[in-house]
């Protein structure tokens, strides 16, 4: 019988080394003995690898090429050149960056949002070029609202992240205020586009309730007793 010099436990003869610390067992008196039966067989039952999302996403990306090529081919055959099929390209680019890219490549969340914004920008640009419309809707409406929406997505993800140290109610306060301001900004850009910047009107219907709700949440957050009450009442 052998003992682990490190742990002080007796080791079953079948153990080649101490399972607790990995120290090898060499008992000079018992070397010649035949190999004892191990308590478990050597065959390991392997788990199937969990679904390889990266593989599936890459596969779907390849599938996306089928409608793209089909429309391009149809476009060439019908109009003798590539025209409207660029829209399909732009659309698929947005689908790819929003849904598939996060599964294929790992990068910081900010970068995903930035790439998605660029893809939407490209799609809008393509629409502008192909429809040969005015620049102003793109510059005054499309791109600014895309940019703002991106910023808001980033802000929401930061608020929802488990690393966020703020109390939950404060996070909701910020999120609500953010939604209200976003709507005001949309009205501002619409005004800009219509060449008439005036005092916000309809967006105030969204802004005020949001701000009122947000401030009441902030107040609630300051009252430990009320907070406790909410926790209690909403406990399930």
């Amino acid at each position, binding site marked *: 019988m052998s003992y682990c010099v490190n*742990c*002080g*436990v*007796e*080791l*079953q003869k*079948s*153990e*080649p*080394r*101490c*399972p*607790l*610390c990995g120290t090898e067992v060499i008992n000079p008196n018992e070397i010649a003995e035949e190999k004892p*039966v*191990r*308590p*478990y*067989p*050597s*065959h*390991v*039952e*392997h*788990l*199937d*690898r*969990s*679904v390889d999302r990266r593989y599936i996403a890459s596969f779907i990306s390849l599938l996306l090429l089928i409608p793209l090529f089909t429309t391009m081919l149809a476009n060439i055959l019908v109009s003798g050149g590539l025209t409207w099929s660029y829209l399909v390209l732009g659309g698929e680019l947005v689908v790819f960056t929003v849904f598939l890219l996060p599964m294929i490549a790992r990068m910081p969340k900010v970068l995903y949002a930035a790439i998605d914004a660029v893809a939407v920008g490209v799609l809008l640009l393509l629409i502008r070029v192909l429809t040969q419309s005015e620049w102003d809707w793109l510059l005054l409406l499309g791109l600014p609202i895309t940019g703002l929406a991106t910023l808001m997505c980033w802000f929401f993800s930061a608020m929802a992240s488990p690393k966020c140290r703020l109390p939950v109610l404060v996070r909701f306060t910020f999120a609500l205020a953010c939604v209200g301001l976003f709507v005001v900004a949309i009205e501002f850009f619409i005004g800009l586009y219509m060449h008439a910047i005036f005092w916000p009107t309809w967006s105030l219907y969204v802004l005020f309730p949001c701000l009122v709700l947000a401030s009441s949440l902030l107040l609630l957050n300051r009252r430990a007793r009320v907070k406790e009450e909410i926790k209690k009442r909403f*406990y399930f």
Partner: protein
Amino acid sequence: MPKKKNASKWMKLDNAALIYPATMNRSWTALFRLSATLTERVDEDILEVAQKRTLRRLPWFAYKLKRGLFWFYLEHSDDLPRIEEDVANPCVRMRLNENDGFCMRVRYYHNRIAVEFFHVLTDGTGGQVFLQTLVAEYLRLKYGANIPRGDKILDCSEPSQPEETEDSFAVHSGKITQSRKEVKAYHIKGTDERSGFVHIITGSMNAADVLAKAREKGVSVTEYLTAALILSVDAIQRRRVPSVHKYKPVKLSVPINLRNVFPSKTLRNFANYVNPGIDPRLGEYTFDETLNIVHHFMAMEVTPKLLNVKITTNVRSERNAVLRLMPLFIKNMALKYVYSQVGDALSSTTLSNLGVAKLPEEMAQYVRRMDFILGPLADNRVCCASLTYNGRLRVNFTRTIAEPVLEREFFTRLVKLGIPVKVESNQQS
């Protein structure tokens, strides 16, 4: 005229079983394993016949788990589970489709017969009755052993009794409920193991040694082991967590066999948990202090009244009309969330002591050893189970991380307390 097919038999899940299919996923199933090591090599063919006869006595062990619109249920099937060769990583997740839908599997290796149960079927006590009946039947077929049958070793020529499949939780639920909320406990973290390998380390002790030590302190063996394990987890937290303010409570989930508290003959789930523990922020605890805490905590918590409140809470949730009418897939999400809040999160690890297995002399002469192993838990990466048989108390640790920190801490602690420990493992050479 062709014989009319019998209406298929089916069974609702018992109250404790409801959570297990909802929380299972592709890489985790709540399993436990009981095994008996015989004096000679196991004969697969005889084992198959023995299984068939045992399942005739306990037919619902071969029921298959099915999805209803609102709940999972167990359904009778005419096929029998296959007998498998054992593997190096016992209790690795059970995929029901790979297992032909059965919720248990019988495995053999050399002299050992092992049965792995999915927790929807039964708990440790029910599993033990199944294993003992299976082994008794095997020994009868192989050696003609005439083993007296009773409550623990069933007679396979008798039909199954209705009280064995009763949902005792529903029977023993009362009127008063309480919140399940508790402080979350410290969890031991480590390096994930390749493709879900499950490490088993068995520490075997002389049961009389442990009993003498426990008696010396005026506590039970379970309480003695629990206190030692709490201090082992505590030591790990003190080494790993830099600030005393960041220490979390160290608590152990200790399953309680409710059959010892309430009259019940059920062989399905009938267990509940208590979580004794210490708060390391308050200072270092000595072994005697911890023993004292565990002993009195158990005395306070393991009473028919408090356990009844716990049972009632669970049964009441099951009877909640909103929950009942929720479609299964939404219910699963809800149960998953609840489990993540009040399941493993409340304890640092589990210590399940099944007590002493006593076999009649006619059977004991063929059975050298018995083991009880818990399958990996959902969140906690290490857990342990123990069973005493033939004068040896065997503590089996199950681990899904690479580092055997808790095992080392626990077994060396027992050695220091004056209990010699002999270890073996499923480590790959």
